[in-house]
């Protein structure tokens, strides 16, 4: 619970400090009780929603994908590769993109490799990404190997 409170404080501090259109603050709270609903796709989908919400206008390429999906009967949503491609395109349009993910130890084990790899890609391809992560110490050691020289 305390970690959660720290995350909420950091999120509020970042939100309060947003300067105009230049920054986005996206956040997700992982929740053990929602483990069946949480995956890399849902977490990063939510991040994409918040990043796009911070842009001045909806990017054309996203608008097009949306129109196409609307015309299709099944109208399926974005898949993880598309979400990641868009994030790597849109985050560089910001001055800084903050992504806060609380309680990584509550994120389902079976989807972790995919989420870790996706965050790795975002940090590698978008140097203006700032990640704030919370979790148990054991996970911290893991993260140190995922982000060598990039983790405080």
């Amino acid at each position, binding site marked *: *619970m*305390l*970690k*959660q*409170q*720290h*995350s*909420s*404080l*950091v*999120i*509020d*501090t*970042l939100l309060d*400090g947003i300067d105009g259109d230049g920054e986005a603050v996206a*956040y*997700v*709270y992982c*929740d053990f009780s929602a483990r069946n609903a949480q995956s890399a796709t*849902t977490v990063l*989908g*939510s991040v*994409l*929603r*918040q990043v*796009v*919400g911070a842009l001045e206008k*909806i990017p054309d390429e*996203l*608008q097009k994908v*949306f129109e196409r*999906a609307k015309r299709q009967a099944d109208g399926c*949503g*974005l898949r993880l590769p598309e979400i990641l491609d868009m994030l790597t395109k849109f985050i560089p349009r910001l001055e800084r993109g903050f992504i806060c993910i609380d309680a990584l130890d509550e994120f389902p084990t079976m989807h972790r490799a995919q989420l870790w790899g996706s965050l790795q890609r975002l*940090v590698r391809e978008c*140097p203006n*990404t*700032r*990640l*704030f*992560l*919370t*979790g*148990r*110490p054991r*996970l*911290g050691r893991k*993260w*140190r190997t995922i*982000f060598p*020289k*990039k*983790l*405080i």
Partner: protein
Amino acid sequence: MPDEKRQILEWISPFASRERHQAVRDSRAEGVGDWLLRNRNFSTWRTSEDRTVKPVLFCYGHPGAGKTYIR
């Protein structure tokens, strides 16, 4: 926010974390985490324009231990 933008955001993801955030914020004890905001690593991470700054801040804690650390 125009309706279309709202519609597109909702299509991207139905998961907005705002409600959860609001609930956690309301339960936040006074003074919790002030040390974190004063931490030099945090302010560097938050404000530095330097592209060589470490971009990932990991904050860890033992559940129920009553302390959270940055390392």
